[in-house]
């Protein structure tokens, strides 16, 4: 995997293309290679087209989600050095605000019943405001304390959302609520897919021209309509990934991005050169939080129910794994990392489980003891069954090991350390007027 990507990036960089084209090729290459791998595995084991396509759709969905969050986190940690491990909390603020703004006023808990777009924008604003409140004090502490403060904050947010005290309350005559442990039910963001697929976004009604074409070709291939619908929403997410990428890359290659890097490297030195680092940090923290909020909205908001336990700290660590796999400090890396995480660590194992379950008919024995005892008499199936049954746990172990090995062997991520030069112009060009000489040492 590592070697593959490395060779890929070497090969690509030989072509002498501009950086963005190289990056695009790199991302595309990785994605296509992974798709091919899964398709081959699927075909070899006789998996139906429907399931393969369904899996690829799921992988892509999660890849997009994790890429979005990893990109936002990269702005905080990779560029500015703000070690924020409260990402889940900011995602929760975004998703919940959207939920509270858009939920039906007669629901339980009630919401304001505002249009979806208001909810999305409101969610981003709320996330960035919480970011602002958090930033003011939190930015004053050391990096490892900052980590603990942000983690504590995300837990405070989650517990507050869980608490029955906020389950339903009233502001200025409007009833609102978080719904406590049951969460909040609100229109899901994936209705945008319906607008593309059905006339008047009515799922029981007629499909649009696009919808008709898609559904008919899906029918031919034996693919469920639900996959098509999710697929269309996934494409919308990808559009957001592109937007995030463009935005963040522009920031990275600008004097503003240069200040961010300087803050990461030595804040006092940056201040002494006249840079208002506090303002910059607050700005970029708020921006990152807004993006995290949006990622939370696009992800959790695509379900009809938003519940507090979707925002456990583990979510933040998933995002960190994605970012570290790709290499922090690199936007391309964030996307590749998000994809690699979704494909190989998050969804991939589930695909394997589906295949194994289909091939061998074993019930998981209740304990590992019951799995080992038959092994002594030469029957490995129960153990296999147990392993498949414990796949979720094994997957966590695997994620943990990946983190450890990455920190020991490749702390800079799979793409290696990509020190992108923060400037809006080509720095290697030297002014002609001076005595010049070679630009390279």
């Amino acid at each position, binding site marked *: 995997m590592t070697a593959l990507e490395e060779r890929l990036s070497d090969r690509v960089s030989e072509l002498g293309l501009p950086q963005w084209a190289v990056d695009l090729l790199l991302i595309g290459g990785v994605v296509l290679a992974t798709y091919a791998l899964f398709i081959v595995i699927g075909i070899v084991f006789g998996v139906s087209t429907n399931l393969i396509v369904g899996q690829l759709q799921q992988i892509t969905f999660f890849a997009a989600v994790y890429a979005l969050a990893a990109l936002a986190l990269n702005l905080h940690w990779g560029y*500015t*050095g*703000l*070690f924020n491990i409260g990402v889940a909390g900011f995602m929760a603020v975004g998703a919940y605000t959207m939920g509270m703004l858009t939920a039906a006023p007669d629901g339980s808990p009630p919401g304001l019943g505002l249009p979806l777009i208001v909810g999305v924008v409101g969610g981003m604003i709320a996330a960035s405001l919480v970011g602002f409140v958090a930033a003011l*004090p*939190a*930015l*004053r*502490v*050391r*990096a*490892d*304390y*900052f*980590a*603990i*403060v942000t*983690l*504590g*904050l995300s*837990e*405070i947010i989650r*517990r*507050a959302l*869980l*608490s*029955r*005290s906020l389950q339903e309350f009233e502001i200025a005559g409007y009833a609102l609520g978080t719904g406590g442990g049951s969460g909040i039910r609100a229109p899901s963001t994936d209705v945008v897919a319906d607008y593309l697929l059905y006339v008047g976004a009515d799922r029981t009604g007629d499909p649009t021209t696009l919808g008709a074409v898609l559904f008919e070709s899906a029918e031919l291939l034996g693919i469920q309509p639900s996959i098509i619908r999710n697929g269309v929403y996934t494409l919308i997410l990808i559009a957001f990934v592109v937007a995030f990428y463009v935005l963040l890359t522009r920031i990275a290659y600008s004097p503003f991005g240069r200040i961010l890097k300087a*803050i*990461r*490297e*030595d*804040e*006092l030195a940056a201040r002494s050169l006249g840079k208002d680092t*506090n303002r910059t940090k607050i700005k970029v923290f708020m921006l990152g939080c807004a993006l995290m909020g949006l990622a939370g909205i696009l992800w959790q908001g695509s379900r009809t129910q938003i519940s507090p336990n979707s925002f456990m700290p583990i979510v933040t*660590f998933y995002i*960190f794994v994605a970012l*570290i796999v790709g290499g922090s400090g690199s936007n391309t890396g964030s996307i590749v990392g998000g994809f690699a995480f979704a494909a190989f660590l998050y969804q991939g194992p589930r695909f394997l489980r589906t295949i194994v379950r289909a091939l061998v008919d074993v019930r998981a024995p*209740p*304990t*590992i*003891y*019951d799995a080992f*005892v038959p092994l002594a008499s030469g029957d490995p199936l129960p153990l296999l069954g147990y392993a498949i049954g*414990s796949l979720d*746990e*094994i997957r*966590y*172990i695997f*994620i*943990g*090991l*990946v*983190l*450890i090995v990455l*920190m*020991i062997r490749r*702390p800079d991520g799979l793409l290696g350390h990509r020190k992108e030069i923060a400037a809006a112009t080509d720095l290697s060009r030297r002014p002609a007027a001076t005595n010049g000489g070679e630009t390279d040492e």
Partner: protein
Amino acid sequence: MSTGNVRGRLSDTTAQEMVGAVLLLGIAVLALDLVRLLVTGELSIARLGSYLWAGIVDSLYIGLAAIGLSMTYSILRFANFSHGDLITTGAFSGWTVAYLVGGIGVADLSSRLLLRANGGAQPGAVGMDVLAAPLAIVLGLVAAVIVTVLVALAIDRLVYRKLRDEDGIALLIASVGVALALRYLLAVFYTTDTRGVVAQAPSPGGVDLHQLTLVVSAVSLMLGIHLLLQYTKLGKSMRAMSDNKDLALITGIPTERVIFATWVIGAGLAGAAGYLIVLDRGQVSINLGWFLLLLIFAAVILGGIGSIYGAIAGSLVIGITINLSLVWIPSDMNEIAAFTLMIVVLIFRPDGLFSGVETA
């Protein structure tokens, strides 16, 4: 991020003192309110007493774990996110041994070995209480300490030693990986089910013997550590190392051996804490330590990293806060209060509430 200097700047202003004053004022108001509630009878003395006792019990096991976390934090210079799972390791390994010993002849091997992962061998049937199986319970505690120490040393050898020269953030991330791997390795064996493994506590004369065991064990362990660090060179060399590792090396302090000792003490206490928590609560679960971790961090930070007495004092504050706060706030907000307290202290007294108190 290097905000050390910004902090320095902050420490010049009086913001610290101001917030300190506000905090003190708040505490005073709450104390007055407490008196009012007591006088008006809205809060019975008995209830207040039970809050305080629960707070002390909580703070004792948080404290045991916090000492270890504080030591590794100051000597190895990273926030160890796998500390919680060392606690869990202690809980599972210790109770497995207790079950193995106590359940001989009563329960089948698989239930004992995997701590009832199959639902069999209920604790009452096995007689898992301090009066029915005192030997098993004590052996379990010893095993919890030993196994946790061995696990921690193995992890240090395999992971942290390779990262000695890296910065704290790299180690922190690696420790998150360790936490996940360790916890779910346990889960593969023991399953993710929460289950009771301790019989109902015998309570002659209304004294809960399990709670008493916890209190006695925890206090003696803390005392033991205090004596160890006070009267051996170990304590001083630990302080020297947490102060300046390179210089410690040059001075001839065998740093690897100090690190070894740190893990032995830190992990041993964590293991004991895990075991004792289960003795008190009765149930064991894979998330036992992980869910406690943030509270333990809060205690360590309140007390000031590196100070053992600070860790204990911080644990007291946290333990009392999460229990006594119930007088004013609903029980599902009590941890919010504890975390908020932690954040406030971090921001305005980054060196902890009890910094300046000498460590052993």
